[in-house]
C-alpha cells in the first residue's frame, strides 16, 4: 500500500473524508507552487492533486485554463514539475497525485515518466483525457512502479464503464459530479449521493467527488457520503486573485483549513 492507500485507511478509521485540493504546478511560478503546497498541507489537506499544465486543457473550465496559460508562459516542462515534487517530498509525506493530459506524458515516454514520477515521490497519476479502454500501456508502467492510476467516472458512465474503472482503477475513483468541465458550480446535483452509492456497489476503492465543489458547505455535504472531496477551481481562483507569493500561499492554506473544518464537523456528527 502506498501513501494514498494508507491515508484513506487512516481516515476511514476516524470516520473522516479526505480533502484533496488541486493546484496547477508553476502558476505563476514553481517557487510559489512550493510555498502553496506547504500551506495546503499545513491547512489540513489529506492528499494533493498537482496539475501538470497543458496547452490545450479540454477538460478544464476558464479558471484552470487561465492558470495553465500562466504556468506555461515561461516554458514550464514536465521535468521541472517533477523536480518540484522531489523538493516538496523532502519535507512532506502527504500523498501526491499528478493530474495531467496524455500528450506531455506520452512525449516524455510513458515508462520513463512513471519511473521518474515514482522516483521523485509521487503516488498516483490521473490522466484526464485517457479513457480506461486505452490505458493498458500507461497502466503497465504505473503498476510496475507502484503508482496508483486513478480513473474518472461521471453521471453518464454506464454500468460497464463503472465495472471497468472499478477493475482497473487504483488508489481511489474520481467521481465527476456533473457532466462538463472543471469549475465552480452554484449547485451540485441533488442525486449525487445516490450516484455515489451506485458506484460504491461496484467497488471497494474509496470514492472521491470533484468538479464544481467550491464552498465549505458543499465539501461538508460531499464528506457525508463520499470518501474524498476534490476542490480545484475555487482554490485556483483564490490563488489567482491574491497578490504575491506569500499572500497566495496564505490564502490557499486558509481556504483549505476552512474546507477541512467543515468536513471534520460532519465526521464528528457521524460519530455521535
Amino acid at each position, binding site marked *: 500500500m502506498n501513501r494514498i492507500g494508507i491515508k484513506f485507511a487512516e481516515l476511514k478509521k476516524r470516520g473522516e473524508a479526505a480533502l484533496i485540493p488541486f493546484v496547477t504546478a508553476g502558476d505563476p511560478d514553481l517557487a510559489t507552487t512550493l510555498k502553496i503546497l506547504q500551506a495546503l498541507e499545513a491547512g489540513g489537506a489529506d492528499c494533493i492533486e498537482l496539475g501538470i499544465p*497543458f*496547452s*490545450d*486543457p*479540454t477538460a478544464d473550465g476558464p479558471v484552470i485554463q487561465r492558470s495553465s*496559460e500562466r504556468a506555461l508562459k515561461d516554458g514550464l516542462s*514536465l521535468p521541472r514539475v517533477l523536480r518540484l515534487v522531489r523538493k516538496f517530498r523532502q519535507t512532506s509525506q502527504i500523498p501526491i497525485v499528478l493530474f495531467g493530459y496524455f500528450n506531455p506524458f506520452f*512525449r516524455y515516454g510513458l515508462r520513463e515518466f512513471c519511473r521518474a514520477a515514482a522516483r521523485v515521490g509521487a503516488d498516483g497519476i490521473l490522466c484526464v483525457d485517457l479513457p480506461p479502454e486505452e490505458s493498458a500501456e500507461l497502466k503497465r508502467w504505473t503498476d510496475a512502479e507502484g503508482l496508483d492510476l486513478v480513473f474518472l467516472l461521471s453521471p*453518464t458512465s454506464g454500468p460497464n464503464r463503472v465495472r471497468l474503472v472499478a477493475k482497473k482503477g487504483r488508489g481511489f475513483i474520481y467521481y465527476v459530479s456533473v457532466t*462538463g468541465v472543471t469549475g465552480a458550480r452554484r449547485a451540485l446535483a441533488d442525486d449525487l449521493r445516490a450516484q455515489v452509492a451506485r458506484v460504491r456497489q461496484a467497488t471497494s476503492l474509496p470514492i472521491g467527488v470533484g468538479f464544481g465543489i467550491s464552498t465549505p458547505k458543499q465539501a461538508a455535504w460531499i464528506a457525508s457520503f463520499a470518501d474524498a472531496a476534490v476542490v480545484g477551481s475555487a482554490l485556483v481562483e483564490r490563488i489567482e486573485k491574491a497578490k504575491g507569493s506569500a499572500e497566495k500561499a496564505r490564502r490557499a492554506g486558509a481556504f483549505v483549513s476552512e474546507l477541512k473544518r467543515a468536513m471534520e464537523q460532519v465526521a464528528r456528527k457521524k460519530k455521535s
Partner: protein
Amino acid sequence: MPALTELERAYAQARRDSSFRKELQRDLHQYAGRETPLYFAERLTKALGGSRIYLKREDLCHTGAHKINNTIGQILLARRMGKKRIIAETGAGQHGVATATVAARFGLECEIYMGKEDVARQSLNVFRMKLLGATVRVVESGSQTLKDAMNEALRDWVTNVRNTYYLIGSVAGPHPYPLMVRDFQSVIGREARRQILKAEGRLPDCLVACVGGGSNCMGLFYPFVREPKVKMLGVEAAGRGLRTGQHAASILGGEVGVLHGSKSYVLQDRSGQIRQTHSIAAGLDYPGVGPELSYLRDRGRVQFVSATDDEAIDAIKFLAETEGIIPALESAHAIAAVKGLAPRLAKNRSVIINLSGRGDKDMITVGDYLGVGI
C-alpha cells in the same frame, strides 16, 4: 466516452441501413448539387506543359466547398439519434457554414465555435452563419484558431452531451470521427474515379490535395488507396516557410502525439505542448492531421510536400487567369504544388487536383496580402 460509443454504434447501424444511404444520396444530389464535374483544365495543362490536369470541382458544391458532403451525412445521423442541438468548430468558416446550412434545413439549434483570429479574417463566413440562424461563439483562448475552437466545442459537448450532437468537420478528433468523415467525403474519390475512367480510359497517375486536418484529401484519396499505381500527394501549409517555425505542416514538421483524442503527427514542442501554427489559409491552420493520413504516410502510400503563403497567393492568381476559377486559399496550396510537379510529368500522364473550395470567402485576406484595400 459513452457519447463516442453511442455515436459509433449509431453510425455502424446507419451505414448498413439502405434507407439511410438512400436519404444521403438524395440529399447529396438534390441539395448539395452532386455530382460535381471533373473538369479538364486545358489552359492550365498547356501553361505548365506537362501532364494532363483535371480539377475535381468541389468548389461548385452548395456552400462553396466539399465540407457539405460530411455535414449532410452527419446531420442525417444526428436526426436518427434524436439530437436537437448541433455544435461544430470551424477554422475558415466553411465547415461552420456547411453545418449551419444543414442545421437550418432541418430546423435544429446550431452553435459554431470559431477562434477570434479566424472570426476577424473570415468575417464574411461569420455573417453567413448568422444569416443561417446559427450562433457564432468567439473563442479567445490559446491561439484563437481552429484547435482552440475544437477545444471549446469539446468542452461544450461534455457539458451538454445528452441533447447535443458534435459535428466534427475533419478526419481528426476521437474515433469514430476520422472514419466517419472519411466515409462521407469519399464520395469525392468515388465520383472522380468513375469520371476519369470515362475521360481517360484509365486511372489517374497522381492525385493532389491540400491537407489541414485532411478531410478533402482523404475524401479524394481513399477510393484509390488500393491502386498502387496511383500516386498520392498531400500538400501541407508551409506558412512563412518550414524553417521559420511559422507553419501548419503537421506531417512534415511534427512528431507523433495525441491531440483531440487521436494519435497522429502533431506540431508540438519538446515537452509535448501543442505549438502555435500559422497559415494564411484558416482551414489549414491546425497543429494535427488525421490519424489515417499519418498512417498512410508511415506506410509510404501518400507523399507530402508543402506550399507557402506566397506560393498559395500566386496559385490563386495563376488559376484565376488561366482557367477563370478562383480557388479557396486552402485549395490554392494544391495548385501551387502541381505548378512544380506537372512540368516534370510526361504529357500522357494525368493528375487530379481536388479543388476543395472556392475563393470568394478569401477575397479580403488576399486583398490585404497584396496591399489592395477592398
